[in-house]
């Protein structure tokens, strides 16, 4: 008992010992490259890294991607590092709320949060709760801004060994922040919101016909201790089915993605123990979509939009350019001992607070999955997205290294508030379908 008390006191002291965030911290957090981009000797734009030369650049890789390149899964084409500016209103909200936000006594408790990046200060390895702070930065990140939509969104299930495409699913996804809004009116919250829903995620399937009109709705609450609400509309049942959301570690519609894997981590802060493991400059697929040389027009779009293509073993990896960027290594260990993974290591991009790379380990601690998400600059994408300052999801790859299977995703993202009205995120909307 005494030992516990002492540890708790030390932890509180440690929290208190971290310095209060400043304007300079905000500036550094959102403009980490104002003094220049990171470099690695010999790692120049235009080169290709393959199993033959990957050892030369080992320090520029996370362990999961390094192993894949070394093993011949994929060659990495390197492009120049670029700035991915974040929404100005989000940055301003961060400034306005400096010093007002602090962690509560328990993991998953946050006090005083209004909007913006909660903890813009550089994480400190000596801060025992630094990982938790990064997790909050991720949860309240500017991903999709206040709202965003993806259509079409193609998922493919692939046999990594043979390259066979086993299933293609055509989705529509919508995201809406009901709280902590900074840009799209109403600000800061869509009211009334009696349940204090922070974020809604709505998805609908268009193909294949077997899954047509399947719809998923997830409500995440601002109270991180409160379990998400989830609803599934099954086209063949014509009925909304309440989901037991304690189980988000299921393969979503048979893919290699768990619901918990969406966007790198789609769960509550309180469901993981978070540990900050340091900072590293690594290669991640951040790029200008319109400048990619290997886009595919396999899916015809009226506006001529082309999707990211996939290559490498089993066509499991995005065929895009990578750039060297600063990342925080954030380790998440499930609180639930029955969780199918032992830990996931997220490489949070320092500027966007979004993980370009995630490595997942199974219960025994062996490498299980390699998750890669490609981010596109909004000014080099659809014309309507230009100037949004939202780093756009453009591709994802989840490779199950044990079963030699992968799921790939090809996005067409739209940042447009009109596409995400609140009633789209009401359960009743699903009942009005076909």
């Amino acid at each position: 008992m005494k030992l516990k008390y002492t540890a708790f006191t030390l932890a509180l002291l440690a929290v208190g010992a971290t310095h209060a965030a400043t304007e300079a911290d905000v500036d550094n957090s959102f403009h980490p490259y104002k003094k220049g981009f990171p470099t690695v000797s010999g790692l120049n734009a235009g080169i290709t890294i393959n199993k033959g030369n990957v050892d030369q650049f080992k320090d520029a890789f996370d362990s999961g991607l390094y192993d894949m390149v070394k093993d011949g899964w994929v060659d990495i084409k390197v492009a120049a590092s670029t700035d991915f500016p974040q929404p100005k209103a989000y940055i301003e909200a961060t400034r306005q709320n400096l010093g007002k936000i602090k962690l509560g006594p328990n993991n998953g408790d946050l006090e005083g949060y209004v909007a913006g990046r909660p903890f813009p200060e550089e994480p400190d390895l000596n801060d025992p709760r630094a990982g938790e702070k990064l997790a909050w930065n991720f949860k309240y990140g500017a991903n999709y801004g206040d709202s965003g939509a993806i259509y079409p969104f193609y998922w493919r299930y692939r046999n990594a060994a043979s390259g066979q495409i086993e299933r293609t699913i055509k989705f529509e996804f919508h995201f809406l922040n009901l709280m902590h809004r900074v840009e799209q009116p109403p600000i800061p919250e869509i009211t009334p919101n009696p349940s204090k829903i922070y974020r809604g995620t709505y998805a609908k399937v268009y193909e294949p016909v077997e899954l047509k009109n399947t719809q998923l709705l997830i409500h995440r609450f601002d109270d991180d201790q409160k379990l998400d609400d989830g609803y599934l509309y099954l086209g063949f049942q014509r009925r909304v089915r309440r989901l037991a959301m304690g189980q988000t570690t299921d393969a979503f519609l048979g893919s290699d993605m768990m619901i918990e894997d969406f966007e790198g981590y789609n769960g509550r802060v309180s469901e993981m123990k978070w540990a900050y493991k340091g900072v590293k400059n690594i290669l991640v697929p951040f790029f200008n979509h319109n400048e990619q040389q290997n886009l595919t027009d396999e899916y015809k779009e009226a506006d001529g939009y082309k999707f990211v293509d996939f290559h490498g073993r089993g066509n499991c990896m995005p065929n895009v350019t990578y750039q060297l960027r600063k990342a925080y290594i954030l380790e998440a260990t499930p609180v639930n001992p029955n969780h199918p993974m032992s830990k996931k290591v997220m490489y949070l991009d320092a500027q966007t607070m979004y993980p370009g790379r995630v490595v997942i380990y199974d219960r025994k601690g062996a490498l299980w999955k390699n998750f890669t998400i490609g981010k596109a600059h909004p000014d080099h994408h659809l014309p309507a997205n230009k100037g949004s300052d939202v780093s756009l999801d453009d591709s994802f790859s989840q490779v199950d290294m044990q079963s030699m299977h992968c799921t790939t995703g090809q996005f067409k993202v739209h940042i447009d508030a009109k596409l995400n009205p609140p009633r789209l995120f009401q359960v009743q909307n699903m009942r009005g379908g076909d």
Partner: protein
Amino acid sequence: MQKHENQREWRQKALAAIILTALAAGAARADDLPALGDGDDSWRVDVIYENATHYRGKDDTGHEVGLSKFRNTLQVELDKKLASDWDFHAILRGTFDGVYRLNDDEFGRKAGSRRASDLQFENTVSKSGGIVTTVPWGGGLGANGGPWNQATAPFGYPGGNELVQAIYNGGATVGVMPPGLVANTAFVNGSAFSVQSGVGLRMLGDRWHGPDGGVAIAVPVRPCDSDKRGCRDFGGYGDKDRSELEAPEFNDRLDFIREAYVKKTFNIGDDTSFFLKLGRQQVVWGRTDLFRVLDVINPVDYSRNNIYDELQDIRIPMWIAQGEFRFGSSELMQDRNLSFIWNFDKFRPNNLGQCGTANVMLDAGCFFRGMASLWDNGGTVANFAHLSDGSATLAEIGMGMPIGTLPRDMWLATNFGPGQIGIRKVHLPSWSLSNTQFGVKFEGVTQGGLNFSVNALTYRSQLPSLHAFNNAQNPFVASQKGGSSHLIAFDMHFPRVNLIGGSMDFQSETLGAAFRLEGAFTKGEEFVNTARPKLYSENKVFRSVIGIDRPTFIPFISESRTTLISAQLFYQHIFDHEEHRGPLGKYGMPDWKDNFIGTLLIKAMLMNDRLSPQLVMARDFKAHAWAVAPQVEWSLSDNLKLTLGANIKDRSNDDRWAWNDCRDCNPYPPYTAYDEHTGPGPLGLSGLEPVGRFRAGPIGAAWREDEAYFYLRYKF
């Protein structure tokens, strides 16, 4: 001619209703949801082919049924974005079931008996003595000699034939029946049945039970173009020719249009919208699988695969206007919606399946057809006429039998003439405003995440109710009609029912499960009740279902994907239930006062959800009947899926299904009186027919319909 006039009238009214509603709705501002995938204004067309092949094992006669379904379905799903943000959706479905030709001995033009002697009707000479004889079709009391009196004695009871013969021929004074009885009555002689009338028949219920001392009738089983006997429109089934059974969607109700509707959302305020859906559609209320507590707006076609198909495929779409005010959230609730549905389609009941086809829910279609044929044509009824006074000795009538006196527990096969017993008319509600159906539902989500609905619906019962009209030909007195009570001569009605109910769902983090609850109280439903002079009563009913869904990691199935375990318990209570005890047993309502049915689904998803084994188990606790349905689905590609499965059922203690059959109801005293009678009404004599089916339930009544099946589904 009148029929066509009626049809034209209701269609015109329906069209007018659609146009008026659409015009009214047009006054609001369009603000449809920006569903990106629906934004394309070109036609989206999906074409799907499916073959369903079922093979059925032995029925209760010991006969291997064989192929029971070879259905080929072509389904076209159409979607189009229309002008002014209207969306159009349609599903067209056409099927052809080859089973009526490929297995015509069982379900086609060669089904049923080849000759009258294939059908044997019991004469219980002495129930206590176990003496039973049989007569062929047409050979019952009233046959009065001739080739129809070919009673056959069971092994070990010589003399049974002779006794029956003596009584048939009026050669004995037995009880209140005078000598030469048949000569003065309206019971028919066997010669009133044409020779062919013994062809194409089966004994009612022989697929799932033996006669067992109860009443039995013969029922025609061939398609109605081969045999019109007993063919009636019971509400979309019962009078179908072979071609109509083969391709059931192509009928005068245009059932090949499974769905065709337009929908749109109108913004009528800052946070309020109005959703409108007009056309032929399914409206689904409730939160449970399989059980229809609130999900009663559309009738259901059980002829497709009994209770074992997805409801989406067997709901009968109706022309419905559905309007929903979506108020969004308030300070107290996260979501609030008020919806109205107006089912302005001409009434249709559930399709229970035409007799002679593979899926006849509760075997009811056979009971209806057999009774309709009995009314139209007359027929033999097994174990019916009771000789009440047992004072005469066998010696007096010259019989040498193992028992000394004339048995008091004797019931003889009897030949009824046309217009005496059976089903006379089907009163299907015609189209009128007062016959349309209306519902309202408030659905919301509370601040704490509880989803709930409150529902009210006024509708027509989708199940028929048989009313004894007590005005048929008295078979004992040829010159007398009417004046009876408790007479098993019926008209079919579909009463109006009012329902109020509600539902809710919530999740438990502790249990890792989601719960679903549903309950409804109805007023106006009618049930068989042999205690009542008209043989039915109106009773209030409460039904509820509680369901629990728990995705569970079962490591030996999959370590990365949960297996869904879903359990449900259905409960039904009939208020003012009547169960009386008479001198010969119980009588009143055959339906259980309180009944429970449980289901359990275990469904795994393997190989990235492309392989899905599942096991469904169901138990009807009161009927002591159960079903087990293992199945494996395999998606070879996005376009091709194969399904292999089986459906196995069994029961125990099926004697508990027997119920008072009203042969003892004494409709024409003194001719029909037993010694125990003091007036009309039952004494409690029971058998499995005709109302044991209500106690056996859909699982018990189909316990001899074990099937293996294979489905191939391909999307072009």
